[in-house]
């Protein structure tokens, strides 16, 4: 895995694995239920309650451990649904062109311009109370507003791929359209799809937390870091000195987002060699024998010079900051 040699990507992967661990084992490790009265109101952090207690005497540490699972499930599920949608719509629009392209591009642009969060709040406010707690439904609704960006990127990539010789060759040799799309075009789009998936997952996470914070979804079921933020805000945790109550879920959400963004950075540099070279540190460049001054119009390119030690590309990327 060459991509893992990138330090940014690696730290993203490690962070993300940490959150997956928290999502899988968190509820088991939590000493109490998130909504069980186990202490006095507003207790400070102590041995029995690591993160203190809430206004109602709930254990904040247990709330925190229970908060990861639903966020991760909903974000990834939503990312998967939206990515599938964007691949189907984007590739179809780019490959078939014509009227279909016009219609699908317009649809994508409309969804890009519509303010997503108010739109989701409107949809959620009409949902009957029983449906608001459904994880799958929530993921589906969020993905409704998350596919358009990926579809637009994939469409433009497909447009440029469609003109390549190998696609022409496949067409001339009589391959059917679905086979050309599935075996010639989509495999070449994998890095773009991966990047779009991460972006959409990040979007879904932020949106789900925001929807919970607003109270547009069922706040207590499923329990999440959004629920903690909602109650911390409602009970004025900051004014009462219980800053861990809102700081813990807030930092966790921000770090989860950072891990996804770091992974995305890695993929971006993987796709765009110019960014990769720009990201090379002085040390990394010296290691491969490139002396770089503050030059313009020159992307530092790694060439095995006659007198320099030949270093494998993997090691160069490893030195990338």
């Amino acid at each position: 895995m060459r991509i893992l040699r990138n330090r940014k990507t690696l730290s993203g992967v490690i962070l993300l694995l940490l959150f997956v661990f928290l999502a899988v084992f968190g509820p088991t490790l939590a000493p109490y239920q998130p909504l069980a009265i186990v202490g006095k109101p507003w207790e400070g952090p102590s041995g029995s309650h690591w993160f203190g207690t809430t206004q109602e005497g709930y254990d904040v540490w247990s709330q925190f451990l229970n908060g990861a699972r639903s966020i991760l499930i909903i974000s990834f599920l939503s990312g998967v649904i939206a990515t599938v949608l964007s691949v189907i719509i984007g590739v179809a629009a780019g490959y078939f062109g014509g009227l279909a392209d016009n219609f699908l591009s317009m649809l994508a642009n409309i969804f890009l311009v519509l303010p997503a969060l108010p739109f989701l709040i409107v949809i959620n406010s009409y949902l009957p109370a029983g449906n608001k707690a459904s994880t799958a439904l929530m993921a589906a609704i969020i993905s409704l507003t998350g596919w358009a960006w990926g579809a637009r990127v994939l469409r433009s990539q497909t447009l440029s791929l469609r003109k390549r010789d190998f696609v022409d060759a496949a067409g001339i040799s009589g391959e059917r359209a679905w086979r050309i799309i599935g075996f010639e075009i989509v495999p070449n789009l994998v890095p773009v799809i991966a990047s779009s998936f991460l972006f959409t997952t990040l979007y879904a996470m932020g949106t789900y937390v925001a929807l919970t914070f607003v109270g547009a979804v069922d706040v207590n079921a499923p329990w999440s870091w959004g629920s903690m933020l909602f109650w911390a805000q409602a009970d004025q945790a900051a004014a009462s000195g219980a800053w861990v109550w809102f700081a813990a879920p807030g930092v966790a959400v921000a770090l989860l987002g950072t891990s996804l963004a770091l992974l995305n950075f890695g993929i971006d540099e993987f796709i765009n060699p110019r960014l990769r070279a720009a990201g090379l540190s002085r040390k990394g460049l010296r290691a491969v024998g490139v002396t770089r001054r503050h030059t313009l119009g020159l992307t530092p390119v790694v060439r095995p010079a006659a007198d320099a030690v030949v270093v494998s590309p993997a090691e160069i990327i490893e030195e990338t900051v």
Partner: protein
Amino acid sequence: MYVLARRLAFYAVTAYVAVSVNFFLPHMMPGDPVETMIASAGGQLDQRSVEALKAQFGVDTGQSLWAQYWHYWGQLLQGNLGISISKYPSTVSQTIGAALWWTVILVGTATVISFILGTAIGAIVGWRRGSVLDNLLPAATFFQAIPYFFLATVLLYLFAEKWHVFPNADFKSYDTNNYVIGLNPGFIGSAVQHAILPALTIVLASVAGWIVGMRNMMVTTMDEDYVLVAQAKGLPKRRVIWYAARNAVLPSISSFANALSFVVAGSLLTELVFSYQGIGSLLLNAVQSEDYPLIQGIFLIITFAVLAANLLADTVYVLLDPRTRQEG
């Protein structure tokens, strides 16, 4: 001009879709929104308002869905968005009108500041690629991932609760006890003082996106031949950066639409944290009190505002990029 006309047509279609969705959504959902509203209003509504609500949501009117749809359009074009349940007997238009300007001024100013600041920083970081300034990027990424409302809570806690630099506890749009809205120095001073923290939140949370976008575009633009020529001619460095930056900024402006949606979402939540009496707080109150006409009205107003901002960005783009003005 052809470009602008086409964009205008697109925004008209988008507005049409938004209005239609707004109308059809309550009709597609299970349950009866009118029943819920009458129940939550707790007998406050008189017979006439109940009739008006039933007419608005097409309950027991005997009209076809199609006739209701056209009726809805007719009402909308007259500026009639129905009556608000939670702010009864105010109409939705009055309620929104009172809150709208707070949000437009706050979010508008903060967004412009954030865009200019982020683009400038991004241009410099991109210019000095590979230097220590690149370390800004991971920090920017982290700030990008912080939810707006969390940043808002932290700022409120630090600046208002702890250090008392800004008014605390019941943070509002201005000091309601001592001043009245109007063109007097006391009110304006108070309003500005109350707007600094929310604006700071929006700027801090959104600036990272502009920095990263501009930096990446700058790195790509600097490899273009015209930048090299400008440098080779011996132009002062500031001029060369300016040439590169002017070209690199174009994608930032065209991705404005995408970014604006995030800024709007974040600002709504920031208002909630600061109890800022704009559209965001209004929307959240409406959600909590199941005030459907108000929710619908706010959604429409936000959509129209976003479309208007996009049109503005498109106009700027056409002014900046001569290629779009060419015929054919």
